[in-house]
């Protein structure tokens, strides 16, 4: 690539870099079509979460003469216990699930990365205090705590749910980011930045963070899947408030109300939310795979 080697002036150089980055992204994507599929899936879920519910009326229509109806053109995943289209339930229910995932991921990453960076860069007393807090947090078992919390807190909004899951999930990220920071802060470029008298926020924000951004971004995506599993699990156990279109509630009602594990009538009702979770996970895994290569020069060179 000649463009990268010429570098006539700073502005065009950064534009070229950006262009090259996107070219690199495109190349990585093209190399494995599955990665494209991952992006399409994730875009599809994002669309579904944002716009999906707008395609349906506030209260989904029911057909009480077709309870647990088998799949058909009108109802690709059949109907539920009161004759509501299962696909409509999955689509309208995606907003809560995805919003929770997003809130959890943001909180996990912001808290985890912030605490990790700060502790790793400052070291000393701050490091000890923050890492002890992190260790303590890591010892708290998430699911049992959520089970107890759910008896007093109804988690009616996705943001509340995401907040709690996020607050329970940042420990691992903080630990990993701290160790990365500890390693990076001894490198030459950080030494150089310090020698130039650059401020701590500059060093953390401009020197350290970009090196760790890919790792943090991947963790964020993985946190989304973790949050989806956790909340769907809690709803499945029946400890959280009832929302007919919540994926976990759908699984619960299909198994315990419809006997989906015993007979076939409620099977589509069980499979639809399961498939949605599976697809979402698949999309995230494929995108993380692509990101890994984009950000890891060693993989890119191959």
């Amino acid at each position, binding site marked *: 690539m000649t463009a990268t080697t010429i570098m006539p002036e700073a502005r065009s150089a950064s534009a070229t870099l950006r262009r090259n980055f996107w070219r690199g992204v495109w190349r990585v994507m093209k190399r494995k079509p599955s990665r494209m599929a991952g992006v399409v899936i994730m875009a599809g879920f994002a669309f579904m979460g944002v716009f999906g519910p707008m395609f349906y009326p*506030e*209260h989904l229509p*029911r057909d*009480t003469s077709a*309870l*647990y109806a088998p799949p058909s053109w009108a109802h690709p995943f059949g109907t539920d*216990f*009161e004759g509501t289209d299962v696909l409509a339930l999955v689509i309208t229910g995606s907003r809560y699930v995805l919003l929770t995932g997003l809130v959890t991921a943001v909180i996990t990453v912001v808290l985890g990365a912030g605490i990790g960076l700060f502790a790793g860069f400052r070291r000393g007393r701050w490091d000890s205090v923050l890492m002890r807090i992190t260790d303590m947090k890591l010892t708290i078992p998430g699911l049992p705590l959520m*089970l107890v919390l*759910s*008896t007093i807190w*109804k988690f009616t909004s996705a943001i509340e749910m995401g907040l709690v899951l996020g607050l329970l999930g940042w420990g691992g990220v903080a630990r990993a980011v701290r160790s990365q920071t500890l390693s990076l802060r001894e490198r030459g470029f950080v030494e150089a930045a310090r020698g130039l008298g650059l401020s701590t926020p500059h060093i953390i924000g401009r020197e350290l963070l970009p090196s760790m951004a890919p790792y943090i971004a991947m963790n964020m995506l993985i946190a989304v899947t973790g949050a989806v599993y956790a909340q769907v699990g809690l709803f499945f156990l*029946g*400890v*959280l*408030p*009832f929302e*007919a279109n919540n994926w976990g509630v759908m699984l*619960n*009602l299909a*198994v*315990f*109300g*419809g*006997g989906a*594990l*015993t*007979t*076939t*009538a*409620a099977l589509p009702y069980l499979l639809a939310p399961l498939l949605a979770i599976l697809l979402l996970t698949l999309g995230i895994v494929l995108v993380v795979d692509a990101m890994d290569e984009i950000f890891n020069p060693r993989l890119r060179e191959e």
Partner: protein
Amino acid sequence: MKRVAAVVSLLSLAAVTVTACSSTSTGGSSAGGGVFTTIDGFKPGLDVNGPINPWNPKGNMFQGYNAMKLGWKKNHLTDPNQFYPGIAASWEIAPDNSSITLHLQPNNKWSDGTPVTAEDVKLSIALAYTQGSTAFSVDPGAAGAASDVEIIDDHTVKISQDMSNPSVTFVRGVMDSFVVPAHIWKDAVPANFWDTLKAARGEGAEAEKARAEITAQADKVLAFAPAKDVSAGPFTLERMNPGEALLVKNKNFYNAANVGPDQVKLLNYTGNEQIWNYLISGKLDNAPFTAVPADVMKRIGQTPGNAVVKGFSPVSVAMAFNQSKKPYDNVHVRRGLAYLINRDEITKIASPEGGTPALTTTGIHQKPAEAWLGSELSELEPYKLDVAKAEKEFKEAGLKKTGGKWTLPDGKPWKFTINVPAPFSDWVSAAKAVTSQLNEAGVSAEVLTSADYPLYLSELAAGKYDVGFWLVALGPAPYNIYQRLYGASNGWSILGGKIKHSAPGKDGNWMGSPETIDVKGVGKVNPGELTGKLNTAPESEQKAIISQLAKAANQDLPVIQLWDYVNTQFINTNRFTGFPENESDLLRETSGVWIQLGMIKKK
């Protein structure tokens, strides 16, 4: 997952099924009478370490098999005092209900060979006092409690009722008592128990102390664990593992000659799905009431030998209002809601196999309602689906409809929130269907679930909910039926034979009905006082009281009755015969009772 069946059985209204097991299952030991395989509806989740103690909820004594009561309730439609013989072979009830004289089975022995005597009964009553039962209670306010236990001879015991605060349920309370061997259990209560009990019946500090002393024994009795099972029932517990309990025939049982099976196997289960799978594989010949989806029902029916028997179950489910909360204090709002709920559809969605839509709200299951009310039943308002009538009622209540949605009289949005315990899938489905119907009619409605049933009940009692699902019509005793509507949860309690009313929000009054209701064609009535009267009124007067209460409930709607449970049980006739027929009153007892009465025979 727990289930409604569990509630029903806790209320001792469900019956358990006996299932014949294949002869291969216990290594040839089934020769002769064979092995029955069943589940105990009272014991979801067997506990290998549970004590052999009938009072302990985790105890390994199974009603009708190795746990015996004085008699077994028939739960007759209208007469609560009919029983099948248990430890007592026969009994005489004084005409004024003041006493019952029990004649024990003459040749009954415990499984270790010791005869069953009046002493065993007396000690068992002492043990029951520590746990507090209907008839054996030291609570000074308890109606229908025993005042004296007298041993007439080795096989005769007379139990008298405290007539200062009587109840027609006294006899039922006595008969519904477990009997355990005195020679094993004698150390579970102190030797001076009866003196303490006498002191506890008085008044003042001394009596208070004595009462505390007796109730303090409760935990000790619950924890009492005999080393081995000594039973006067048809079976004794042989061994247990986490998957099943094996019981073998008790040769000393009074009716041992007629006991069909040699062994009974009780399988462990923790949720309905396990029971469905047992039934589909043909393991169970008979299972107690279990909520079953229509498709699973079909699948169970395909297994050779499986059949369904149905009978009466004195339980209905209703939606109860907290009238301390607006707008549910307004009867027109409650009536309007009743007109918007399609009970046929709710039942079809939530309990297609185990329920029939309630005819209307009377507070009574429709079968005894027919017996008690006769033609008056058809004169009551049926609250059939009628949107126009609902609108009229809502308007009368001052509610306003703006933009297709009903709002409160002051124009603020109205959110109708129904609470249900999450583990009861049929209630959850029903609540969801109710909200769907209401939403379609412009009433903004939602379902909220509680993590488990005990938590649900405590929050309901604390007045935290606007509307919640509530079991009603728990018969057959009329007092028991109506105390679900006009009892302690609605402010009326009986204290020292007198009815006392507590204001809404106090003493467990979460329903908050008005103290008097002007009932059309009857006049002003105090439903709590009328309910209290059912405790003492002779049968001839009960009918008139029930008629007034049914009218009051139908007009005032403290609850909206949704469906009446049907006791749907499964049997498998491949290996055993002699099961109760449809509508048999024995369907309300465990299959252990069927066996001990000599009905079940090997095919």
